[in-house]
């Protein structure tokens, strides 16, 4: 059974048109992460939530926002997508910080027209 669920698997949007990617988890984990992974590159952390505390990476563009309305759900909002934002977006969860491993979803592949 999937424990970290990302919807949709594939998302197409137009240049400049806002888009929201969703992630849900059945693990009741405290920490949720969003990564951007471009082709043949390592995942790049955008931000993460430790419970309700939001932690933004210094080099994450302002174009990217996130919401975590409850423990189970976390959203990635891209306000005005550019062509360079086309990528795979990975959601991950972790029971806690430190040694606890991350559990990844299948990812959402975002294409920009």
């Amino acid at each position, binding site marked *: 059974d999937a424990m970290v669920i990302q919807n949709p698997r594939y998302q197409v949007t137009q240049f400049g048109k806002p888009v929201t990617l969703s992630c849900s988890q059945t693990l009741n984990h405290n*920490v949720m*992460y969003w990564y951007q992974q471009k082709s*043949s*590159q*390592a*995942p*790049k*952390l955008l931000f*993460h939530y*430790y419970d309700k505390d939001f*932690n933004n990476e210094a080099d994450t563009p302002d174009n990217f926002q996130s919401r975590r309305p409850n423990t189970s759900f976390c959203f990635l909002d891209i306000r005005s997508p550019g062509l360079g934002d086309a990528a795979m977006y*990975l959601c*991950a969860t972790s029971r806690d*910080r*430190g*040694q606890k*491993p*991350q*559990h*990844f*979803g*299948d*990812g959402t592949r975002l294409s920009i027209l």
Partner: protein
Amino acid sequence: AQTVTQSQPEMSVQEAETVTLSCTYDTSESDYYLFWYKQPPSRQMILVIRQEAYKQQNATENRFSVNFQKAAKSFSLKISDSQLGDAAMYFCAYRSEEQDDKIIFGKGTRLHILP
């Protein structure tokens, strides 16, 4: 700032043979965690093995083992008896215990298994 380096973009190994993927990292911290993740084509990333920096003993998970050299800041992954299902991108990752739980991935090594 911490960095993770995987110097081998691609590797190939014959089925049933052993292969070692290298990873080095740079940090000034004493407490941290190291992970190897596997990402098969078009499939989700899964944890292969993890190592706590304070433990001297190398972690082992079935056919997967690590050679952790803390002083040298080296964390290589050894896959024994390679199987076709091992073909994937392998990412080495560093997780800080001190700096707001920052996680850094290496660029990955694509492993091909030759039948």
